[in-house]
């Protein structure tokens, strides 16, 4: 219990000061709490902003990657278009090459036929063998099924059949120069039908007339009346073979006939002197 004049009791100023200090302390604590709250708020905001920043950065990176990807796709598309163009060009070139190859093959085949025909005709020195070769050319190379080889008998102006295949009876007899065959011979003109070929012979209307000519003189003719069933038209090679026969067949035939007439004796060297004028 405090007594009046007790020296241990605090002076009134001190009480007031203590109160003020306590009040100030309490206000400081409150302020500190407010600061703390503010600090936490700001910290959360910083975190949120950092998260947003990170998200935006990620977004940017994604957009950049997408842009790069799109550019790459565009480049690949361009490459694809270029490759397609090159493929089309290569295919076109291949097509042209194939066509050219086919053409060369056909030309080779045609030349081989012509060479073999000519070679075989001129190798023979017996008329019968020449005729056999002519028949082989017509049957095996051209595909003729019915045909006649005529030689011209000039004094009687008739065409005399000397070989034939698939031709019978009256159609194997001699024919006049004013017949279909004779007319083409007189004109020295190769006749080849433009109609579809037939395996059924029509002896009044030959499919082909090949005039046989020696030094511009008509000496005979070949008439084809029918071809093999599978043959629908004459090829370029066939036409070339007909042209070859025009001069090569009579030349080979006459050479062989003259050689036989000379009793297969070779001419002496005198026959060949002074040839290099």
């Amino acid at each position: 219990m405090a007594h009046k004049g007790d020296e241990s009791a605090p002076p009134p100023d001190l009480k007031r000061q203590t109160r003020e200090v306590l009040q100030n302390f309490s206000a400081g604590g409150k302020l500190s709490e407010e600061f703390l709250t503010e600090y936490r708020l700001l910290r959360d905001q910083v975190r949120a902003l950092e998260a947003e920043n990170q998200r935006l950065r990620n977004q940017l990176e994604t957009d950049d990657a997408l842009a790069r990807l799109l550019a790459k796709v565009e480049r690949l598309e361009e490459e694809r278009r270029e490759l397609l163009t090159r493929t089309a060009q290569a295919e076109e070139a291949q097509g042209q090459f194939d066509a050219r190859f086919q053409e060369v093959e056909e030309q080779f085949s045609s030349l081989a036929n012509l060479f073999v025909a000519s070679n075989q005709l001129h190798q023979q020195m017996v008329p019968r063998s020449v005729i056999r070769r002519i028949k082989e050319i017509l049957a095996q190379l051209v595909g003729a099924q019915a045909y006649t080889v005529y030689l011209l008998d000039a004094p009687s102006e008739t065409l005399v059949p000397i070989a034939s295949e698939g031709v019978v009876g009256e159609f194997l007899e001699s024919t006049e120069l004013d017949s279909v065959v004779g007319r083409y011979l007189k004109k020295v003109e190769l006749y080849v039908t433009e109609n579809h070929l037939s395996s059924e012979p029509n002896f009044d209307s030959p499919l082909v007339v090949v005039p046989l000519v020696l030094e511009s003189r008509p000496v005979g003719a070949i008439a084809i009346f029918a071809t093999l069933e599978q043959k629908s038209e004459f090829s370029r090679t066939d036409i070339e073979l007909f042209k070859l026969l025009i001069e090569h067949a009579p030349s080979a035939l006459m050479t062989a006939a003259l050689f036989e007439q000379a009793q297969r004796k070779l001419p002496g060297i005198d026959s060949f002197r002074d040839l290099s004028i």
Partner: protein
Amino acid sequence: MSEYSCLVVEDSPMMRQLLVFALARVKNLRVTEADDGVDGLRKLAASKYDIILTDINMPIMDGLKLVKRVRSDPAHQDTPIVIITTEGASEDRQRALQLGANAYITKPIQAPQVIAIVKDLLKIQ
């Protein structure tokens, strides 16, 4: 690179020459010629061939007899045989195929067809 051998049996010198010309286009193919079936058999007895091309209509021994003889010989049982025939001779063609021929070519012969058949049977690219 392996070399192939081919026997051409054909009595017509013209057809033979034409076949030889066509077959010259097949790389590494050595061609031997025979005049008829008997000559063909003689050449087959002397050496082995990778393929045989034979005409049907030939004197002395025709192509059908040749096919039969070749197939009955164990040495040539598996040798591919191509017969050469005319379009009309369908019976001969059937008979030859029954006897063991592998393929046929019809006259007038076309070089590209001959080459294609030979390459196919010899499995050449």
